[in-house]
């Protein structure tokens, strides 16, 4: 069984005014929004550009707005957002420069993730040492950018480090035993456009598809920064 669907796609090409294109497609209701977008590209409009790779919410590349909410379109079935004969609106993430159509520029985002330096997959080699039974090598964050799109502060201050990098900083701080590394992370985040810029709206935590809870982590870093200040008064190293 297939459904008749209308896709309204936000279009943008450099040097041209943004517009919205409407496409009619037939799709099995159990296929995803990303399947719909790929089908439009394959069958109707080869100029449509979009980011995607894994199609199972691990790579983080396909994040977009669908019906005005941030989603990973690869795991949202069309029947979850519309009905037979219905419409789905898709557009690029907010708060990122748009490169073309649904493609946004992730350059600054990855630069900040690299500054923090938290590996998303920890070093693991069972040939050298057997992992523990409850072993988890992956960090949850898939670097999709959804939390930045949802954040009201990122919208007004492009220099703000943003929820994903701050959440990574929290993990890197606590994963490290090295006091220099801890200090480096604190220097990076304990400043005006770091942890203190957050308005505690918790939009990032609500939007994150991967249960990272960036807002909770930012609050954790704030407590840590305060504790470290007190310790410094007593001549102690950062905890």
């Amino acid at each position, binding site marked *: 069984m297939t459904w008749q669907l209308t896709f309204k796609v936000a279009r943008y090409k450099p040097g041209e005014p943004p517009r919205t294109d409407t496409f009619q497609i037939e799709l099995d209701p159990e296929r995803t929004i990303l399947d719909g977008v*790929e089908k439009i590209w394959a069958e109707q409009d080869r100029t449509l550009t979009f980011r995607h*790779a*894994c*199609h199972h919410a691990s790579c983080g590349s396909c994040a977009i707005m669908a019906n005005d909410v941030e989603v990973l379109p690869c795991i949202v079935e069309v029947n979850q957002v519309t009905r037979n004969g219905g419409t789905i609106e898709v557009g690029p993430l907010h708060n990122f420069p748009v490169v073309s159509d649904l493609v946004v520029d992730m350059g600054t985002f990855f630069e900040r993730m690299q500054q923090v330096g938290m590996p998303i997959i920890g070093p693991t080699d069972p040939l050298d040492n057997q992992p523990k039974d409850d072993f988890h090598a992956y960090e949850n964050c898939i670097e999709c950018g959804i939390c930045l799109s949802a954040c009201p502060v990122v919208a007004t201050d492009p220099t703000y480090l943003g929820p994903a990098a701050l959440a990574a900083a929290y993990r890197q701080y606590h994963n490290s035993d090295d006091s220099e590394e801890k200090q480096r992370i604190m220097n990076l985040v304990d400043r005006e456009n770091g942890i203190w810029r957050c308005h505690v709206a918790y939009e990032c935590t609500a939007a994150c598809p991967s249960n990272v809870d960036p807002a909770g982590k930012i609050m954790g870093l704030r407590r840590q920064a305060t504790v470290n200040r007190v310790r410094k008064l007593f001549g102690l190293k950062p905890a």
Partner: protein
Amino acid sequence: MNMSEHSQKYHVVVIGAGSTGAAVAHDLALRGFKVTVLERGEIASGTTGRNHCLLHSGGRYCVKDQESAVECIEENMILRKIMPEAMELNGGLFVAVNDEDMAYKQSFIEGCEATGIPYKELNASEARRREPYLSEKTLGAVWVPDGVFEPMRMCMSFLASAKQNGAMVRPYVEVTGLQVEDQRVVAVEVWDRISGEESVIHADLVVNAAGPWAGMITDMAGVDVPVVATPGVMVSMTGRYCQLVVNRLNVSSDGDIVVPQRETSIIGTSSWTVEDADYIEMPEDHIQMMYDRGSEMMPILREVEPRGIFAVARPLIGRIGEDEREIARTFKCFDHADRDGVEGFVTIAGGKTTTARAMAEGTVDVVCAKLDLEIPCATKETQLLSYRAYYTI
């Protein structure tokens, strides 16, 4: 004599930024060539990004296709050293759940020994202690050094290193034609899908790494390669129910492997052939087969919700109509000068993401030989940059 002074003179265009094209670009750049990578979509938006994420130990091939198995274990051991950030080295089990599987165990172990795959036998209770969600019917298992990678990040890692060595990487640029003069490919016609501009890029040599679309590229030069687009379905379940990769201890078949990645367990895969791999309609019965077969090893997979269902096509070397499972999984580099009398044009196809580095080594050796250069490959020893550097270089 410093050979890279010579290689710098040559501009090599690589078509496709899947694992094959990305690894080829890295190898070429490391050997000093001037490199441009053209990819019509995002990095890894073809087959690579959507594959099963298994860093093969070779176990899946050690009985029936030992050449592939040897390739896999060799590359597995190299990749875990040069690219640690893009993979989880968690290991894998081959699990027996019936007498027929147990009867296969001896040939499996002989296969591991013949191909040099380290292994360890586990009895049923050891296996279920390691993996509590394995079926109660489990009779025994064999451990091998499988791993799990992030295919997109692997490609980005290769490309970051290529960029560091001067390569130009151009996503959203589609190759629309090849210009052939006097039986030699001299330039590539491209269409930039962002700006809409069409242009021509001169090339001393073109490497076609377009995966299941390789045939569309060779058509542009009036030659033909026997690459068959052979899709498979995968179902990613909500929740991670094994820490190690779980394979069925038997001859490869549909739905016989569960790959844990992040917080998901991915069941795969199946096999059929298509003419056009741009949009793949998934057969409902293949999806059902994933639940049915996957749950024979791990019954919980029948009870939990799917998270993502997807399919993607292998670029296998063979002809449509041949039995897909019999088509060899190893790779082949076609020099169109020998084969079809067209100079300056090489196609690399087949293989796996696990063997991308070796595929690249073989291909760039062919490129060097064609240009009469002797530059040794150094990718085995070269630590790759972080995938994040793809965006920051």
